[in-house]
């Protein structure tokens, strides 16, 4: 019997470290997160380093000919993905505050983020 059938729930963390439009990482992780919602696991999203820019308010990429996928982060709640963590130091280094973010998150320190990662069963970083 595999994990799905036996109803085992693991702690998953998707760690976002890249800015949203210069590479395809942010969009690909978001797709993975949306797919993961179908598997009833304990999903956590972490935003650190340039990944904090993924959830910056006011993204308007029409001028660079790219689709604005940032509203999708607001829809995560509808998929019961509500555990979002942002690293305080990463925000500060980039001159940003929690008010600049388009979704509700828990802002935690780098040390706390490290501990949270250590507590996961599966960590996927991009």
């Amino acid at each position, binding site marked *: 019997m595999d994990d799905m059938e036996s109803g085992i729930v693991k702690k998953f963390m998707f760690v976002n470290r890249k800015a949203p439009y210069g590479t395809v990482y942010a969009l690909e992780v978001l797709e993975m997160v949306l797919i993961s919602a179908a598997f009833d696991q304990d999903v956590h999203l972490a935003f650190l380093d340039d990944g904090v820019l993924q959830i910056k308010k006011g993204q308007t990429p029409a001028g660079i000919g790219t689709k604005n996928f940032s509203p999708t982060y607001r829809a995560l709640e509808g998929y019961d993905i509500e555990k979002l963590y942002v690293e305080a130091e990463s925000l500060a*280094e980039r001159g940003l505050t929690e008010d600049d973010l388009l979704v509700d998150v828990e802002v935690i320190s780098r040390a706390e983020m490290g501990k949270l990662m250590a507590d996961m069963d599966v960590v996927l970083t991009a």
Partner: protein
Amino acid sequence: MSALHTVNKSPFERSCLEACLGHAQPGDAVLLMEDAVIAALSGTAFEGKMADAAKTLRLAVLGPDLAARGLDPTKVVSGISVVDYAGFVDLAAETKATNAWL
């Protein structure tokens, strides 16, 4: 005649911007584009470095890349001008060579 340097990687992730600023000559133009636009904002860990660079270099940031990322063009470090694609072409036309720091 001066050169145009383009930088397209975030300074938090790669050292391209530092390498560029270490080699650009007085009077050269440096254009921040794509993920490098974060370096243009005031309040970041790079603000002091950019303010210093603005004393000898002509610094510019690409407006459409700021807008894409929700970054406020009115909050760039003083001395950095916000340009559109036509401004990018002007910079390339005014300079002898373009050096892309990838």
